[in-house]
């Protein structure tokens, strides 16, 4: 799994999470990405948002966990903000 992120003025303006996992329904990935846009680039804000997203939706993840999403987002943000 990997994340591509774009940041402007300390906020996420573009997010893509990619990989060979399974997520049912598939379109939930776009919802998750849309929800992250506008968020402050802050580890705990990202963590809360992702966890909240998976708690609030009936989404089945196979071959990945919400932690993986958080991990790749943080990795990407560290890279793109450096």
């Amino acid at each position, binding site marked *: 799994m990997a994340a591509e992120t774009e940041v402007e003025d300390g906020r996420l303006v573009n997010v893509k999470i990619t990989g060979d996992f399974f997520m*049912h329904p*598939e379109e939930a990935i776009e919802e998750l990405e849309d929800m992250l846009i506008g968020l402050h680039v802050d580890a705990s804000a990202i963590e809360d948002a992702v966890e909240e997203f998976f708690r609030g939706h009936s989404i089945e993840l196979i071959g990945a966990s919400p932690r993986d999403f958080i991990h790749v987002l943080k990795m990407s943000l560290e890279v793109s903000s450096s």
Partner: protein
Amino acid sequence: MNETWRLIDMRVEDAYTQMATDESIAYARGREDTPNTVRLYRWNPSAVSVGYFQNLRDEVDLEACRRHGVDVIRRITGGGAVFHDYDGEITYSLVALDDNPKIPRDIISSYRLICGCVVNGLGAMGLEAEFKPINDIITGGRKISGNAQTRRYGVVLQHGTVLVDCDVRKIFTVLKVSDTKISDKMIKAAEERVTSIRQELGRDVSFDEVRRALISGFEETLDIHLEPGELTAYEDELVEKLRERYLSREWIFKR
């Protein structure tokens, strides 16, 4: 109870028509417009499919695909990138209402059941294989089939590959395996991870023999009778519409 399902048998079409057909049947099934269906098919020209969530440019060598006349498509199912070799693969798809009592609600259990159809088909040819969660079928530790499932429109759609022949060098040509040059060592390592029916049985097994074995595998495992049939007019129309979406750059390069 013995049910009759429809069999759409061994159509040879390009990637866009094949993926549109799987989705068309799923949609029509959800509307109760068509029966539960098993399809067997081949991809011509050969194609690379990527999973719904994959970054196409990371996975596929587009220039190599162009050079070799290999189509590129994005699936509606998750999972990894696959090279669908016209000369080496039969693909199956299964569409059933997701509340059919034969289909477990739990996704891994339903993979196990549907992959079991392929396992039993291989068994009928004397090839011992097993389901390896999440979505593989292996024999002697090597992968011989990859599978992917989606649930939408109130149905289960699972499609998967069955390797009749396997040319690892071809796979490495169209998929981006790494930045390094394809070496004999890499080919050897990959050959230890994947295999094919012909390789395992050590003879020139025909597509028709595999086809018949798979049909019996589905019938016995699911306790169904597969009745050869055609797409409905509604499904045909929908294939044409969906095909346009699968062909669009917007969809293919979505991620």
